[in-house]
């Protein structure tokens, strides 16, 4: 059963006289429980695709069905409800509210959703990402990796069906990035659907399926054969020094 169905999605920006086709006819189907990495160079349209998938932006044309509902025809209130209930979002720059504690940040989407027991759920989510002892810290008292884990806790606390992550490891160290990918793999194993945008092949190889975007088109779509398991990778310390380019 497909959770996401995109049909001929186009996103066209106007910049003065020029027309920028960020997405130019994208068709994509993602099934329930899949773990998809979306890869592409800068300006390929992968972030635009992610924003449309995450209901943060509307396509210029085309149709988007999410769990059987047509998102492209929704108004502000319905879109807010979809973002709140169905989707968890993890950003490259964390996007935590600086004056709120970790716990309050995790509670935030559940406040908008009117979800009961949100304090308890937020605590469980923070324990889940290994921050049980950092709940009352504010973002500026946490490292980048810890902030990103708070953001993941915030995304999963309301138990969404899909997790979207836009370069989630972009602003953290290699070690932290790997730990974050380990959390994603565990979530995927529990059955949550994940779509992740990255430009690093290494990160993409943690997923199960790779979609490659270039110039607003999907140019390749295939399963990942040699998948990296973060848990194993972290057990091999010399991995941290690999990937250094030797000229």
């Amino acid at each position, binding site marked *: 059963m497909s959770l996401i169905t995109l049909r001929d999605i186009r996103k066209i920006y106007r910049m003065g006289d020029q027309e920028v086709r960020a997405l130019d006819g994208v068709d994509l189907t993602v099934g329930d429980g899949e773990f998809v990495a979306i890869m592409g160079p800068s300006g390929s349209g992968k972030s635009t695709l992610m*924003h449309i998938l995450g209901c943060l*932006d509307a396509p210029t044309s085309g149709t988007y069905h999410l769990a059987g509902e047509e998102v492209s025809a929704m108004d502000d*209130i319905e879109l807010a409800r979809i*973002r709140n209930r169905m989707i968890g979002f993890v950003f490259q720059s964390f*996007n935590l509210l600086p*004056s709120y504690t970790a716990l309050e940040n995790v509670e935030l*989407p559940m*406040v908008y959703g009117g979800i009961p027991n949100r304090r308890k759920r937020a605590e469980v989510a923070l324990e889940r990402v290994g921050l049980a002892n950092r709940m009352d810290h504010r973002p500026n008292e946490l490292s980048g990796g810890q902030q990103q884990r708070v953001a993941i806790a915030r995304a999963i606390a309301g138990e969404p069906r899909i997790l979207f992550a836009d370069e989630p490891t972009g602003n953290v160290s290699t070690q932290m990035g790997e730990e974050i990918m380990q959390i994603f793999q565990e979530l995927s194993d529990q059955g949550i659907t994940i779509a992740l945008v990255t430009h690093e092949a290494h990160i993409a190889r943690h997923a199960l399926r790779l979609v490659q975007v270039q110039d607003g088109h999907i140019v390749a779509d295939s399963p990942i054969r040699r998948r990296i398991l973060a848990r194993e990778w972290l057990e091999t310390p010399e991995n941290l020094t690999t990937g250094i380019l030797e000229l």
Partner: protein
Amino acid sequence: MTPLDTFRFAWRALRDNRMRSGLTMLGVIIGVAAVVAAVAVGQGAAASVTNSVGQLGNNLLYIVPANPRLGPGEPSGLTQTLKPSDAEAILARCANTVSRVCPMVRSSVLVKAGNQNWRTTVNGATPSFLVVNNFTISLGRQLNQSDEDARSRVVVLGKTVVESLFGSKNANCVGLEVALNRVRFKVVGVLGEKGTNTFGENQDDMVLIPLNTALYRVLNQKHVSAISVECRSSDTIDLAQEQIISLLRRRHRLSPPFPDNDDFTVLSQAQLLKIMQTITGVLTILLASIAGISLTVGGIGIMNIMLVSVTERTREIGIRKALGATEANIRAQFLIESALLSIAGGILGVLFGGGIALIAARISKWNITPTLESVLLAVGVSAGIGIFFGYWPARKAAKLHPIEALRRE
């Protein structure tokens, strides 16, 4: 999301920016305080005027000199048209309506006792002065007709003068000598304490001497500053006024047109009251409009800060929208923020303005109490201002596009 949650978010945002919230509120605090204090002082003044003019008795008429070329606003000291004989004539010719007359002169005088000096007002008046103006004698005796006839150098002192010259309000100074502009007088009595009058004048800061003594021994003049007339009944006061006007026109040999050529003005208590109420009414309106302007400025201050806040918190708004906040959620939060600012400012302003009114009451001895209406009005208006001036920024915040908002640093 419940309204309580929205309220909590708004409260939190204000608390996170304490300095800014405080400064923004200051505009409203000052505006509301101004409204409350201005209305309280204005109404206090009006009540005080009504009360003290009322105390004068509704059967009194005042005759003051007027310069026909300059109108009634002319300083009476420069207009020399009323004479003591006018007062005698009024009492003699209008006896059916008039019971007492009191011609008087007023001037500034330097009083000396020993090495103590005090500048005060001297009232030279006939013995009826005390009755007509509701003065009492607390010590010694009052002035009488034989003092008047003999142009005696006797003086009755007000309490403030006694205190300034002899160190205490209750000093027994009867029988002592004082000098008025270097003329020696014997103190024969002390006036009872009376306090401040309608015009904010301390009625205890004066000395009283016989009219003839004042005219011929101190001031060397023949004209009087005013004549108070006590009528037999308040019902015949209009008749008395007409009689006096025609009598004085004849005595002064005035020719028409009237009242343009009148060299005097006859005022009744009702007319005085009307004049004073007009003055205090204008005063209240003036104060209230200044207060209203400052309240509006305070409201614009709120709008200004909320607009800055929306710009500065664009990213926060983006985050909230990405996490599932609807436009209505965002708008409500910002509206509550500005409403909270202005209502809190309004409440603090009421307390502050009430404090000012109380201090003003202490100083002026007027009965100034902030009215419930002005408090409700000020708080209501400030809440309204918060919502009115907060709506545009709130709408601006709500309409932000999540992606564009998130991109902003």
